[in-house]
């Protein structure tokens, strides 16, 4: 996550000058409207024609309307309700074998044509510095199509009052259960994206995402100690139905913890979090050493994100992100060898832009490629990367894998992470049975602190809840746990993965990459998995 973007998004107690960077502030009713598809097609055709007239050999046009609503509360009060809208057009062309891009917030025909001409002019100007002309993987135009996130209830259409009441009910439940403080937030995003290209595609998409993070703090005034427990929800590619809890979507876990699959009980989780935050104040500190870790999907998603999703992005492998996010240990020679052991033979990691309810699920990516699923690591061996149209030839692919995304009409689309997930185990296994075989282990639930080096070798992860496992039994809550890994060794230490019945997805709402930085949202699924002999450190310190 981009810390700065999160601070902007929540307002973090700041005043008017730090408005969200995502567009103009509007009333809630604006969030439920759409632009006519026929108008978008006319504008797109205007831009495509202007680009071709200017000498472009390829052009794509994205007309985007990005709508967001944030509701920020603490304890018994609403701190902020912000609605934003950002609408405009981005035109990308290839001229003289070079990319050019221009964007405009003005959707008049003149302005759209001007942006196309500007993009061509930039491409021609930059072509002087081009070393290799752009090679685009073949794709066939798909004609006029549409795709929408399958939602039951558009969160933007739910009255703000109803949403505020839900957050305040969660806050009240936490306070009643002994919390000292609670912060709860509801993020809702609707991307209305229209894509058209000289390949003959006209794609209208309506994408929805929702996230309801809570953070509960317990304080022991006498000792000055404080501990927080974050909610166990996931950001999802869903509508408001995610916040209508269903019994069949609940998973029982150690310590009275409840996990959630496709709906979230925010009131219940806030109350449990309050109890557990207090329990954390008294939990014994971990003894550092090697442990067998049992990692819950609500935790493991972040480890997958950092240690698999990012290093297998082809632009990082090639060096395009060297100055910012970094490069990758998973170099092309390792992939070409066809025997690089990324993980144990139990480990299959796949990229998937189709996964239902996931943040990355779309019908087509931001260069009009129909989305799909493919393996990155198969039975432990590195077999593929994540690529887009102008990279596919580098890894011998005939077509793009559909990983192109821009966070705004005004940003250039580039390669972003697909949903990357750990395939469930093929043998029948549930977490309770997995624990029975662990002699000296730690069960970790929820995502915590995270940090990884610029080639994605050395990582450190915390969590929300840590339970000691002794001789096959979960014994007690412990604290101050973080584990340190070297990526290939960690995945090679994976000795068991629970079956499909335990599969759940987590995800990141604000994954940052690129300069200027862009955010994207991506999910990672897994079943509970076991990793043997992992180095655990104790993070308790004294300030004297």
């Amino acid at each position: 996550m981009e810390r700065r973007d999160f601070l902007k998004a929540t307002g973090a107690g700041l005043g008017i000058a730090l408005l969200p960077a995502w567009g103009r502030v509007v009333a809630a009713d604006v969030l439920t409207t759409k632009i006519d598809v026929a108008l978008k097609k006319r504008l797109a055709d205007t831009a495509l024609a202007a680009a071709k007239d200017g000498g472009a050999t390829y052009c794509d046009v994205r007309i985007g309307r990005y709508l967001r609503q944030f509701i920020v509360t603490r304890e018994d009060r609403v701190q902020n309700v912000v609605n934003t809208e950002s609408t405009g057009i981005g035109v990308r062309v290839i001229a003289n074998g070079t990319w050019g891009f221009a964007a405009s917030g003005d959707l008049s025909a003149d302005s759209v044509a001007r942006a196309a001409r500007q993009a061509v002019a930039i491409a021609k100007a930059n072509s002087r510095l081009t070393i290799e002309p752009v090679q685009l993987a073949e794709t066939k135009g798909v004609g006029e199509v549409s795709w929408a996130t399958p939602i039951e209830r558009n969160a933007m259409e739910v009255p703000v009052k109803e949403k505020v009441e839900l957050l305040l009910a969660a806050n009240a439940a936490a306070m009643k259960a002994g919390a000292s403080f609670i912060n709860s937030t509801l993020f809702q995003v609707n991307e209305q994206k229209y894509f058209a290209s000289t390949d003959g595609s006209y794609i209208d998409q309506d994408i929805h995402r929702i996230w309801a993070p809570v953070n509960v703090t317990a304080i022991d005034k006498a000792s000055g100690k404080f501990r927080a427990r974050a909610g166990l929800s996931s950001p999802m590619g869903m509508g408001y139905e995610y916040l209508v809890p269903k019994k069949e979507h609940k998973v029982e876990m150690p310590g009275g913890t409840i996990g959630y699959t496709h709906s979230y009980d925010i009131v219940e989780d806030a109350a449990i979090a309050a109890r557990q935050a207090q329990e954390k104040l008294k939990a014994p500190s971990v003894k550092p050493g090697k442990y067998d870790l049992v990692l819950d999907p609500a935790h493991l998603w972040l480890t997958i994100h950092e240690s698999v999703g990012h290093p297998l992005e082809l632009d990082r492998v090639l060096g395009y992100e060297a100055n910012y996010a970094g490069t990758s240990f998973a170099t092309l020679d390792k992939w070409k060898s066809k025997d690089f052991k990324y993980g144990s033979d139990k480990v299959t990691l796949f990229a998937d832009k189709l996964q239902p309810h996931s943040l990355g699920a779309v019908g087509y990516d931001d260069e009009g490629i129909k989305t799909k699923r493919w393996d990155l690591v198969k039975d432990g061996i590195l077999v593929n990367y994540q690529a887009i149209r102008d990279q596919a030839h580098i890894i011998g692919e005939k077509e793009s894998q559909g990983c192109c995304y821009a966070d705004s009409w005004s940003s250039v689309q580039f390669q972003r992470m697909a949903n990357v997930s750990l395939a469930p185990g093929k043998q029948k296994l549930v977490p309770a049975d997995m624990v029975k075989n662990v002699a000296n282990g730690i069960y970790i639930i929820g995502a915590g602190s995270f940090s990884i080096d610029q080639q994605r070798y050395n990582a450190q992860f915390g969590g929300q809840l840590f339970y000691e496992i002794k001789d096959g039994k979960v014994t007690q809550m412990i604290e101050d746990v973080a584990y340190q890994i070297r990526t290939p060794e960690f995945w090679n230490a994976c000795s068991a993965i629970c079956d499909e019945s335990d599969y759940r997805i987590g995800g990141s709402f604000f994954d940052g990459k690129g300069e200027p930085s862009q955010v994207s949202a991506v999910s990672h699924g897994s079943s509970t998995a076991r990793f043997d002999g992992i180095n655990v450190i104790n993070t308790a310190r004294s300030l004297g």
Partner: protein
Amino acid sequence: MSIYSEQEAKAILDKVIALSKADECTATLGGSIDGNIRYARNAVSTSGIVTDTQLGVQVAFGKRVGVATINEFDDASLAKVVARAEELARLAPENPEFMPAIDKQDYKATKTYSEKTAAITPEFRAQVAADSIGPCKADKLVAAGFLADSQGFSAIANSKGNFGYQKTTNVDFTCTVRTEDGTGSGWVARNVADVERFDAKSEIKVAIDKAKRSRDAKALEPGKYTVIMEPAATAGLVSFMMFGFDARQADEGRSFLSKKGGGNKIGEQVYDPRVTIYADPTEAGAEVLPWDNDGMARSRMPIISKGKVENLRYSRYWAKNKEKPATAMPGNLIMVGGDKSTMDLVKSTRKGILVTRTWYIRMVDPQTVLLTGLTRDGTFYVENGEVKYPIKNFRFNESPVIMLNNIEEIGKPVRVGDDESPFVMMIPPMKIRDFTFTSLSDAV
């Protein structure tokens, strides 16, 4: 047009204030032109210019607040945005933490603008890329870098007669230079308001030198080491620590500056007596706007004086609640130092580790501000006052509070911009004892 003159900005803001029928009205007008060029693999990958101007209007009826923004400034649009804000305010719940608009403030202009920076052209940006790539290619090295420049203005006004206007510029340059075989990596960063103080040709030499010297790094055992931290290496840690300097958080008991039994640690000796940090919008070379996001006038504010916590940030709401004076949110952080350079600190070191920069810093435990992160792009072993050889990168788990109690020596502060920090910083190179590295990284 995205850069308005003071007169133009005032005319728009005056109209907005006059249009509002609410109990009070605050309006901000800001515009910017941001240019950038990005390169990797010794070739330009993207470049662009984004222009933007935005008007924000905040009105209140009693404790009900509404905010609306717009990017058109004709009379009809101004009437529309005011009406929209008023409509939202009428629908909003009462904000129990509502604070009335600030009184008229006395803003003292600061030097945040450079004509030279505002005049940067696409050709200049391309030249910076060429000046980075050229010498790298010649030396069989690979450059990846980013230059971002901006010019803008910020104007603020309210119905109590407050008004401020100021122009700003900024240039931020970073470049990573790697050896072709990927065994060495160096980095350079420069952040200035005035592009006169920036010369890509000379800056790139720093990254080239580090890339070449960092090849074939040896592995040292993780543990506690004396470290010489270049200014960029500690900027992220110091900046992270500042999140705890909020009075409300501390009083609520959830900051490392909370006191056992309640209250905060203002007046307590928390750091080595050589640590002094303050904020000052007029600081030469690190000037920032003379007001914060609430429009409160910034003035020089001691934060840590000789190791004692002198001030926490009191928001207007919390200040009223605690009957204390409110403080503006600082825009910069100035850490006081001496005259020595990083290499002077190396010369006085018997055994230690020289760190170019730290990366991916995240909070592990807010109770102690325990942070984790890694060294990157130039980490070297120092012995008997000399840089001996490159070493593999380390992961650290360290608290800046402990770090600033383990000071051996402080050098001369330089301006540092950190991509994850909201502050312009003046940070000295520091020699620190017992800095905790917990594992090795194979990353180059």
